């Protein structure tokens, strides 16, 4: 198996099939001092700084998928390797769902979504995977297994390591299993399409669960009981409305952003929501999530990035370069982490004292 990361080929690719094998691999990583990257299903392999050193890849996506659903508690446990689609089907069979709609969901593993803390427009109501994470099992370099969180809805015992692990891009350890809050399938789902965009206040007033702007159109998702959804749609006035499966399909296609991510450069702009409309976005395909103050832009190059970053910085936001050719990424921090890098690096060190995970991709 050969996988290059930003053009850099690792010497070894480990594909453990079980947690035990993974722990053995992590012992070898420590013993031999291997600079290692963790990969789930590889859908986000383009994300991150160009690796400084790369000895080994650990592909977690090859491990046995497993999902356990607890309808009474409205929670589920999933192995990191389970694909988003497998999980969705399994939860739906129980009348439940994982209320997230991150980019590339259909190509992602559950572990990858949690490790990147990628979220979509529904995060306005349901927040991010980081907020929904109740327990995480994390294998450390050297081969010890750790568990963070009791797995119940409320738990403040000890430091909130869960929140560090979610979004850590595999630099603290390998996520093997997560337990998350689920939600019941709503009685009604509707997506309304308007052929114009709305002022932020007007949009908020309609109370969608999430809203997206693409190509000058607004897509608003409503869900809840029938009376609630009809009420919201009624207060919106004109527009096309899709319900049920059709609505879900449209929403899934939109929020997965497969087309946008097929372009060579993808930027993610995050700003306080009221500032977003003033962002000097470069030309290209855009996907805006106005209620969150997030926009994705796909372009041909990173021209204009510095100006955009300067603007974002001036309003308290940032611009991550999610995707770009290695030569364009070589001399920048793609994440746009400005402050507190030193603290982050030292926190990482607490988990991975020799700095073997991540190879400079993230922190």
């Amino acid at each position, binding site marked *: 198996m050969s996988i290059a990361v930003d053009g850099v080929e690792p010497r070894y690719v480990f594909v453990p099939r079980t947690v035990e094998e993974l722990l053995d691999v992590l012992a070898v990583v420590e013993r031999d001092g291997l600079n290692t990257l963790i990969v789930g299903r590889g859908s986000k392999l383009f994300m991150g700084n160009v690796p400084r050193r790369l000895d080994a890849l650990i592909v977690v996506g090859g491990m046995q998928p497993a999902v356990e659903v607890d309808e009474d508690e409205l929670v589920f446990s999933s192995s990191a390797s389970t694909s988003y689609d497998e999980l969705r089907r399994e939860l739906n069979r129980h009348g439940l769902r994982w209320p997230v709609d991150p980019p590339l969901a259909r190509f992602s593993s559950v572990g990858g979504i949690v490790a990147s803390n990628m979220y979509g427009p529904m995060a306005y109501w349901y927040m991010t995977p980081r907020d929904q994470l109740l327990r995480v099992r994390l294998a450390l370099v050297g081969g010890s297994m750790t568990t963070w969180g009791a797995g119940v809805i*409320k738990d403040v015992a*000890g430091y909130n390591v869960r929140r560090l692990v979610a979004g850590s891009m595999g630099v603290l350890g390998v996520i093997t299993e997560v337990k998350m809050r689920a939600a019941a399938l709503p009685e009604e789902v509707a997506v309304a399409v308007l052929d114009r965009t709305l002022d932020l206040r007007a949009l908020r007033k309609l109370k969608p669960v999430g809203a997206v702007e693409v190509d000058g159109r607004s897509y608003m998702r409503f869900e809840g009981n029938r*009376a609630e959804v009809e009420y919201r749609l009624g207060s919106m006035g004109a527009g096309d409305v899709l319900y049920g499966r059709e609505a879900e399909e449209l929403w899934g296609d939109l929020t997965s952003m497969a087309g946008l991510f097929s372009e060579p450069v993808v930027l993610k702009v995050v700003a*306080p929501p009221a500032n977003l409309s003033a962002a000097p976005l470069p030309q290209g395909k855009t996907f805006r999530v106005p209620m969150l103050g997030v926009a994705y832009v796909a372009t041909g190059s990173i021209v204009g990035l510095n100006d955009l970053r300067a603007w974002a910085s001036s309003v308290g936001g940032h611009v991550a370069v999610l995707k770009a050719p290695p030569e364009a990424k070589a001399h920048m921090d793609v994440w746009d982490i400005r402050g507190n890098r030193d603290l982050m690096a030292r926190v990482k060190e*607490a988990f991975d004292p020799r700095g073997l995970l991540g190879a400079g991709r993230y*922190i």
Partner: protein
Amino acid sequence: MDRRLARALASIVGEENVLVDPAELLVYEADGSLVTATRPDVVVFPGTAEEVAGVMRLAREFGVPIVPRGSGTSLSGGAQPVRGGIVLSLARMNRILEVDLDNEVVVVEPAVINAWVNEAVQRAGYAIAIDPGYQYAPDPGSQRVSTVGGNVGHNSGGIKCFKYGVTVNHVRGLEVVLPNGEVRRLGGKAFEAPGLDLTGLFVGSEGTLGVVTKVTIRVVPLFEAVKTILATFDSADAAGSAVSALVRSGVRPLAVELMDKEAVEAVESGPYAAGLPRDAEALLLIDVEGSEPGASQDAEKVASILRAHGANMVRLASDGDEAQKWWAARKQAFGAMGFVGPNYVVEDGTVPRKALPLALNRIREIVAAHGLRVANVFHAGDGNLHPLILYDERDPAQRDAALRAGEEVLRMCVELGGTITGEHGVGWHKRRLLPLMYSEVELDLMRRIKAVFDPDNVVNPGKVLP
């Protein structure tokens, strides 16, 4: 106490903001847990982050501990100066700095009282007419006295947290002073900050990583209608089972609270009596929200589920006033305990929701075995128990028995797959129990995280970690 320290502190914050008189220090000996007391050497009241930083540097220099303190309502000994030293009270830093509804955030100094945020948001909401306005959702029972900084310290929960999440889910950004005196900004007004979630790590760190001097919190839009439902049951178990059925049904209630007969008896004996039925073994108080028709449909569904699961009586509050009276009674339940027993120890374990009936039975057995009585009033939707174990402090043996019973209850919670603390924090009282939940490898990792921020163990030593 080293007089040089007091003088040096006074040079930073001004003499009038330093307390050394033993009579005045008395107030700072304990916090809301009121089970143990230890006197600080000195209390300081800095007014700015820079002054906090100066105090931190001095503490390091003199090698004395610092205990950050908001209103001191911690129920885990979090704000108690267990090793003496400096109590750093944030009380003077109590301004609401900005209500920014365009970005759905509010920026506050740490000693702003939780309830003030909602008052400010409401006022701002009238002014710019965002209908129907906003709220700051985390609402601990102590919200009229506890500070946002203290809420951040313990990652506090509350009644509405069933739907909206706890404090950490509402904190967008922090300004913190590290033990070495550096002032750092974590996060901000944007939905997401790049890199590891240091903001999330700080929330719930109980003042052991540094001092919070500014908080940016998100506020959430209000709905047009809230419906409040009251239901009574023949047993607390039956009420617990009804909660499971309710949650499974797909309704997303705003709040689901349970009170048992002893708790109802207490509130109905006090000034917040709301006409709650005293004869029921348990009652549930539930809020649903949405548009008028949406909330009404949910309320009907809730009522029919509760009836199908053994409720004797189900009532919808006739109007907002009645609902408010019921909720005020619930929120005063801890305070009202004085009407049924002189003192109490309150525990805060959480169990999986479906284990609630079993846990409630076990609590009664455990407490009875110690010859004591218990009242239960808690966040049933979250499985977050709050047994109030009643005792009389004039009899030291009773106090010890109450503490032992409390510890047994927490062990039981962990055995049932839960935690020793759902929202009150580990603090001082529960740190010995942390190893029930974490292995030595995990505890060691937490110690290393502490050392990243506080290598000399200056801020709130003796808390959280065993």
